[in-house]
Each structure stands twice: as C-alpha cells, then as structure tokens.
C-alpha cells in the first residue's frame, strides 16, 4: 500500500460513483437483496445523469428517488411507485424477456471465466461454509444486458482461480457487456480474458496481480480510475446521508460497530419524524 492510498470510505465512494456512471438514462434496474452499494449507485444515477432510470424494487414499479437508510429502503420504494408488481411478473416481464438493462451484483467468489459462487466455500466433498444462495443473481447474470459485478475485497480467494461451486455464468454473447469493479481496479473482458481497464489512485500493478487468483491482461498504459467529482460526492451524500454503503466495505467487528451506528441513526430519524408529526 502506497502513501497516497485512499481510505476505505473513499474507495467505497469511488466504486459507487463508478457503478452509477454505468447506468444510462432510461435503463431498467431491478433491486435485489440488501446491497447498499448497488442501491446507492442506482439512486445516485437517478439523482444525477439518469433521472429516467426505471427502478423495480420489492413490489413497486418505477420507484421515485428517495434518501437511503438502513431501515428505510422498503418504505422508500413503496412510498410513491407508479404501480405494483408481483414477484412472478418480475420474473416473466423483466428477467425472462431480457428487459433488464443493468444490475450491480456482488458474490463471495468469481473466477476469470465469469463464473459466480453463491452456495458453498470449500472444495467439493468437503464443504465447510454454507453461503446464503444466489436469489435472483444467477438469472440476472445470465439475462441482463449489462452486468456490473463489484467486489469490496479484491483478494485471490474472492477473484479466484476457479469457483468452488458454479451458481451462475455469463453467456458468451453477453460477456463483453460486463464490468468488474473492485476496491483496487476496474476490469473488463477482452478477447475471452479479463483485462485491467484502470487501477484506483495509489494502487500498484503488483498489488492487483497479487490480489487476483487468475492472470490478468494488462494494457501498455494503465489508466488511473477517475476519482469522483465534488458534485458527484455531494449528490452521493444526499442519496445516502448515513453512509450505508460503507457496510459492504468493512469487516468483522468494524461492521458490527457500523451497524450499531446506523441503527442509532435510525432511532434518531424515527424520533425526528415523530416529533414533527406531533407538531
């Protein structure tokens, strides 16, 4: 790590802003499970360059933009939708018809062949760690036009040589419309392999190679990922005032401390609303 390495919070903001830039105005997006990084990126895109992005969340169609918080996402989505949708209709009308444009997904493991693991960590036959499962991710990865996969911890166990279990694959025809964003770099497919598109400020080539479980293609000149602009950071603070997106970038005890901080913030938010409602 070099002296000008970014803080974890700064890297989280950079990844979020970079994800948001991949959302085009009018894109159709389906919110998945609790992933503050993805939610923040979609809302940031909607609040800035992509006001017509069409977001489907919970049972709500075309949700209006709202400020994110730990306990407020469902209420925000259902506050002012254009309509309601059944889960099965999301499956048929969006996923199966290939109408989903973009989605940001993460995974416990991904390999250089764009295979994703949501099920088991550990070699076959001896599987010590059970993961939650993929929910909609396998179909999103298969069907969505653009895939944004993000990894808050770029390590060889995560961006690995071969996944321990294949939960999802990206079909050959859609491989090119894929971007991998990590806390170190941005990767993109090139001629059937993953190439480095840019590295984040303060990150070295050796650091990225060491952290990756498969060989990467390097361009002659490596770009540095453009950091967020002042106005993008301002917009992100409005979209995610509590900084929930940091949750995906902290580990272990730090994560529990941050969760407690966010739970306390929710208590204050509820009490502010109750005080205002009492007049």
């Amino acid at each position, binding site marked *: 790590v070099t002296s000008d390495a970014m803080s974890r919070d700064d890297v989280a903001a950079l990844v979020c802003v970079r994800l948001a830039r991949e959302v085009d105005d009018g894109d159709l997006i389906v919110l998945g*499970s*609790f992933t503050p990084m993805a939610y923040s990126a979609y*809302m940031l895109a909607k*609040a800035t360059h992509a006001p017509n992005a069409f977001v489907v969340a*919970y*049972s709500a169609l075309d949700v*209006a*933009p*709202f*400020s994110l918080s*730990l*306990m*407020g996402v*469902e*209420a925000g989505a*259902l*506050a002012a939708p254009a309509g*309601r949708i*059944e*889960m*099965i209709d999301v*499956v048929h009308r969006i996923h*199966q018809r290939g109408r989903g444009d973009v989605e940001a997904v993460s995974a416990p493991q991904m390999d250089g062949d764009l*295979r994703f693991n949501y*099920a088991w960590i550990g070699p076959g036959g001896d*599987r*010590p*760690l*059970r*993961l*939650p*499962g*993929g*929910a*909609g*991710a*396998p*179909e999103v990865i*298969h*069907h969505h036009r653009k895939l944004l996969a993000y990894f808050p911890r770029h390590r060889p166990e995560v961006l690995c040589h071969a996944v321990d*279990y*294949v*939960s*999802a*694959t990206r*079909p050959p025809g859609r491989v090119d419309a894929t971007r991998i964003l990590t806390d170190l770099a941005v990767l993109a497919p090139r001629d059937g392999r993953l190439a480095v598109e840019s590295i984040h400020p303060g990150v070295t080539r050796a650091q990225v190679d060491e952290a990756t479980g498969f060989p990467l293609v390097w361009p002659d000149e490596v770009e540095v990922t453009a950091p967020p602009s002042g106005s993008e950071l301002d*917009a992100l603070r*409005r*979209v995610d005032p509590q900084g929930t997106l940091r949750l995906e970038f902290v580990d272990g005890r730090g994560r529990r401390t941050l*969760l*407690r901080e966010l*739970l306390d913030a*929710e208590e204050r*938010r*509820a*009490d*502010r*609303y*109750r005080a205002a*409602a009492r007049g």
Partner: protein
Amino acid sequence: VIPASLEEAVELIPDGSTVAVGGAWLSGHPMALVRELIRQGRRDLHLVTVVGSVAIDALVGAGCVASVAFSFVSLEAFGLAPNFRRAAESGEIELRERTGVGMTMGIEAASRGVPFLPYEGPEGTELAGRPDAYRTVECPFTGRRLTAVAAIPIDVTILHGARADTDGNVQLEGTHGPDLHMAEAASTVICTVEEVVSPAELRSRSRAPLVSRHLVDRVVHAPLGAHPTSYLPYYVTDMWAIEEYVDGGAADVAAWAAEDEERYRDRLDVDRVERLRALVHAVEAP
C-alpha cells in the same frame, strides 16, 4: 373460513407437511404462525421459500425442519442466518436449492396444476444439473431447447396479510413476494392479518392484491404478526430486533418465540413499535 386462534390454525399443519412460507427478504413473513409452529413443536417440516430469512432460520433452530427448498436464506445486513447455516453445513437439513426464477416458476407451475414450466434456465451452472428441479426439454413447435423447471407441490401455505373480512377474504399490502402464487399452489392456506374488517370495508379497497376466500382455510387476527419482519404500511423491518435475534434469540428460539403472541408483543417496547410505524412515513427525497 373459520376465524381461528393460532393454536387452532396450526392444527392444519401436521408433522411432515410441506409448508410454503410467504413474504420475501426481511418483509412480510408470517412470523406469528412461525412462532406457533415452534411452540407446538412441529417436526419434519419441508419448507418452501423463495428469498427467506428469519422465519426459516427460527424454524430450523427449533428443530422443526427436515428440508428447505430455497434460492436464498440470509439475515441481509446481519449476515448469514446462523441456524440455517449450521444445519446446512452439518447435513441436519436437506437443501433443495434452486435459482430465484427456478423457485418462483416451480411455485407457479404448482399454482397452475402443471408438472413443469419451460424457460431459458441457468445453463452451465451446478444448480441446473439437479435432475429433481431442472431438465432439458425441446419445444414441440420450434425445436428450441429449453430448461424445464419442476413444479413444487405444497400442502400448506402460511401468509401474513393486511386485512381480512369476516368472509375470509385476505388483502395483501407491502412486499408480498410470491404470496399469491403460493396460496394458489397449496391445498390449505392459513393467513394471519393485521386487521379484521367488515366485507364492505374490504370491498372499498378492492385494488389491493387478494387471496380470495375460496382459497383461504383459516384466518387469525395477529397484529404485528410479521414482526420482526416488516408489514408496510403498518411497520418497517425491526432491524434492532434482528440484531437481538443474531446476538441471542437464535441460540434459544423457544424463549425467543415466547409462550404466546400476547407475551411476545408485551416484550416489545412501546417506543420501539412507534418508531417502526413512524419509519413507514419518514421517507425523504434526496
């Protein structure tokens, strides 16, 4: 339909039943019924969920479960579901894992009364190699090769809804996930609701999704019946309670479920419940 107590309602769920659990993520799970199943000590249940969380984890933790058909079980911000994870890793429960679409379409197939439905499935994955769930079929008209996803037969579906009338119609609000199709797929449907209203009152809100009375076998009035999961527009997910569950409740699920729902509700701080109700409305534009 018989307005029933929780105790009477779960008599329709014998040991060994296949039970679909409504709701999705940390929203709208029929937690009062889940707690009653735990109190009654049901065994060998085969659970069906699309995206499950604390309902599945509590039933597994209480030793009620033989298998789980699922695409996802997680406590979201609070991480892996501890009892589910332990039982999955030890082999104590059988896992019938599918993709999210594989689960919803399996439930849909059962709701339509057909043995499978075709779709463009998760080719190249290990999940697609499970012959109990996925096989390949050829379209008889075009010859196109598709994935056939097997129906998921369901004995009993348990749901939480917003309001029921005295005829047994149940209206849903909030995030109802696969609830309507789970109800149509099952032989028996048991619903808890936040409110019981007159037929006229229910009919004044006829745009709400309906589990109609010809499907519903038992209705139980259970305010906060989805707690600690959400039921909008009544209350948001109680993440404070999910933290408490992870820190202690999960290890002693019987104590967590309390002796009955009144005692369970009495344990909740009044201020806490007011906050959960306030956060439904405290939505701000960026």
